[in-house]
C-alpha cells in the first residue's frame, strides 16, 4: 500500500498539471459564450446573464464556409486515419510475417521515416503536388498526412503483430484461409487496441495542423477548420467571438473520435489481462 501522504502529493501534482493544461481550454470555451466587451473587460470571469452572448456561434454557423471547413477537416482526418491504419497494418504484417530479400532494409527505411521530419521536404512536396494537379484538394492533404504517419504506425503495429502467436496464423492456413483473409479476419481483429492507439496519435496532430493546409490547400474552399479560423484573425481587427467559438466547436469532433478509440484501448487492455 502506498502511504496516504505520498499519494496526496502525487495527486496534488497531477491535479495541478491537469488544471494547468485545462486552463487555456476553459478560458477559450468560457469566453466564447461572452460578448466582445466582456471578453476584454473580464477575461477570467465566467459568463453572467448580462455578459452572455452567442454572437460568436451565430457568426460561425451562419457562415456556410465554416461548416464546409469542418467537413474538410473531418474528411482529411478520417481519410488519414483510414489509410494510415490500412496500409500501416498491411506493411507491418508483411514485414513481420514474410521473409523476403529486402525485408530488413525496408524496415530500416520506414524507421528512418520516423526520425526525419516531413516538413523538411515541404518544398518538394509542393512541387510534387503541383505536378500531380492536386493543389487545393483534400486528397493532397490525405496523401501527405498518410505518408507522415505511416512510419510510426508500421513500427508500432509490427510490434503488436509479432506478438500474435505464430500458431494462430498457421491454424488459419490449415483452415484454408488465404493470406488476405488471415490478415483481415485474424490479424486485424487481434491488433485492434494497437490500431486505436495509432489512430489517436495520428488524429490529433492532423486535426491541429496548420502547416500543410496552408501550403497545399489554402484556397478554393478546401481549407481545414484550423486554417479557416484564420479568416477571423485580421491584421487590424480580430473577431474574437468567432475565433473562440470556432475553436470551441473544433474540439468536439476530435473528442468524439478519441472517446471511440479509447474505448477500444481499454477493452484491449482488459481482454489481454484476463488471459
Amino acid at each position, binding site marked *: 500500500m502506498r502511504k496516504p501522504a505520498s499519494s496526496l502529493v502525487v495527486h496534488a501534482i497531477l491535479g495541478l498539471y491537469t488544471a494547468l493544461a485545462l486552463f487555456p481550454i476553459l478560458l477559450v470555451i468560457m469566453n466564447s459564450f461572452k460578448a466582445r466587451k466582456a471578453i476584454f473587460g473580464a477575461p477570467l470571469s465566467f459568463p453572467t446573464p448580462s455578459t452572455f452572448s452567442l454572437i460568436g456561434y451565430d457568426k460561425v454557423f451562419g457562415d456556410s464556409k465554416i461548416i464546409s471547413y469542418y467537413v474538410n477537416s473531418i474528411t482529411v482526418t478520417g481519410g488519414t486515419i483510414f489509410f494510415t491504419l490500412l496500409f500501416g497494418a498491411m506493411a507491418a504484417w508483411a514485414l513481420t510475417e514474410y521473409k523476403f530479400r529486402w525485408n530488413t532494409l525496408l524496415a530500416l527505411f520506414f524507421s528512418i521515416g520516423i526520425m526525419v521530419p516531413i516538413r523538411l521536404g515541404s518544398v518538394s512536396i509542393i512541387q510534387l503536388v503541383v505536378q500531380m494537379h492536386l493543389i487545393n484538394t483534400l486528397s493532397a492533404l490525405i496523401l501527405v498526412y498518410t505518408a507522415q504517419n505511416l512510419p510510426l504506425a508500421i513500427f508500432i503495429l509490427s510490434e503488436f503483430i509479432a506478438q500474435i502467436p505464430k*500458431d494462430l496464423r498457421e491454424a488459419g*492456413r490449415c*483452415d*484454408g484461409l488465404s493470406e488476405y483473409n488471415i490478415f483481415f479476419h485474424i490479424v486485424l481483429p487481434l491488433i485492434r487496441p494497437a490500431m486505436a492507439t495509432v489512430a489517436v496519435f495520428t488524429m490529433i496532430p492532423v486535426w491541429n495542423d496548420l502547416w500543410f493546409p496552408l501550403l497545399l490547400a489554402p484556397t478554393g474552399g478546401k481549407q481545414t477548420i484550423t486554417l479557416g479560423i484564420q479568416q477571423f484573425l485580421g491584421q487590424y481587427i480580430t473577431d474574437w467571438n468567432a475565433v473562440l467559438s470556432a475553436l470551441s466547436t473544433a474540439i468536439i469532433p476530435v473528442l468524439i473520435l478519441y472517446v471511440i478509440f479509447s474505448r477500444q484501448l481499454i477493452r484491449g487492455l482488459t481482454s489481454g489481462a484476463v488471459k
Partner: protein
Amino acid sequence: MSEVKIEKLRKSYGPVEVLKDIDLTVENGSFVVLVGPSGCGKSTLLRSIAGLEPVTSGSMTIGGKKVNDLPPAQREIAMVFQSYALYPHMDVYNNMAFGLKFAKTPKADIDARVNEAARILQLEPLLKRRPRELSGGQRQRVAIGRAIVRKPQVFLFDEPLSNLDAALRINTRVEIAKLHKMLKATIVYVTHDQVEAMTLADKIVVMNKGRIEQTGKPLDLYYKPANLFVAGFIGSPAMNFLTATVKQGGVLVLSDGQELKVKLPNSCGPGDAVTLGCRPEHMTLGGSGTFKLNGMIDLIERLGESGFAHVRLPSGQTVIAEVRGDPGTSSGQTATLTFDADHLHLFNAEGQRLD
C-alpha cells in the same frame, strides 16, 4: 484411402539439415506417434506434412496425391496445435466453423458438422463461449473439434497434451484414443512423452537428430530396441547400460573385471567392445539372478507399490533397479544387484543391436 507416404524426405535450413532421408508410411486409419527428444525434427516433420514448412527434397503423398507443393488447405489435413491456437476473438462455434465458412460450405452443413463435433466432444454447453472463458482441457477439445469438422484425411497433433496438468493429460489421452477408434481416422501425433507414445500408438517412430532411429509397434520397440538410442529413450527410468569387452569362448568382461557368460551372436569376435543393456524392472536387489553386481545404494525412490534403487557401482556408474514393496534397505548400505541373461540387450560398438 488416406495413407501418408513419405519418401527420401530432406529438409535443411541453409547448411543445417534438420530432416535426413525420412522414409515413412502412415497406413490408412492408423495412429502413428513421432517421438524423440527436443530438437530431433519430429515437429518439423509434422509441419512438413501439414505444408507449413517447405521441404528441400523428397516426395510426400497423402491419399495417393502428391502434396509437396500444395498449400496446407489443399492437403486435406487438420492440425491440432500445442498452444491450441484458438481464435481469441471468436466463440467456440465460430472457431470450429471458421474454416468451413471460407470453404463456402452451406450453412446447414456447417451447423450439422459443428453440432456433431460438439456432441462428440461434449462441447454443446460451451458453443457461445470465448476461448478465454474456457479451461485448458476445454480449449483442447475445441481445438480437436475444429479439426474434426473439416473431415480431413489425416489428423496432425503437435504435442497436444503438454499444456495440460497431469490428471487432465491422462484423461485427454484416453479421450484421444477413444476418438481415434470412433472416427477410424489416420493420425500423426508428435510428443516427447514416451508414455503417450506407448499408450496411443499403433506404430511409434523414434526420431533423433533428424533421422528415424526405429519404427515399430510400441512393444516391439520396448522389447527389441534396434539401437542404443531407442533402448535408452523408450522406457522409464531408462535402460541401464554397462560396457564390456568380448573374450574368448563367449565370455564378456565387464569394466570391473567381472566375467559374464552369455550367448553371443556370431558377429561378435574376441576383443570387440559391446554394451549390455538391462531395464530397471529386470534387475533385482539381492534376488537370485545369474549375474551379480555389487555396489552401494545412493538413493531409493519410493513410489508406493514399487520403487527405484539407485546403486552406485565401484566404477562410479549408477545403475537403477526396480524394487517391489519396501526393500528394507536404505541409502548408504551396500547391495547386490542380480539379473538374468534372458532380459539382456546387447549392442555393438556402433550402438546397433546384436541378436
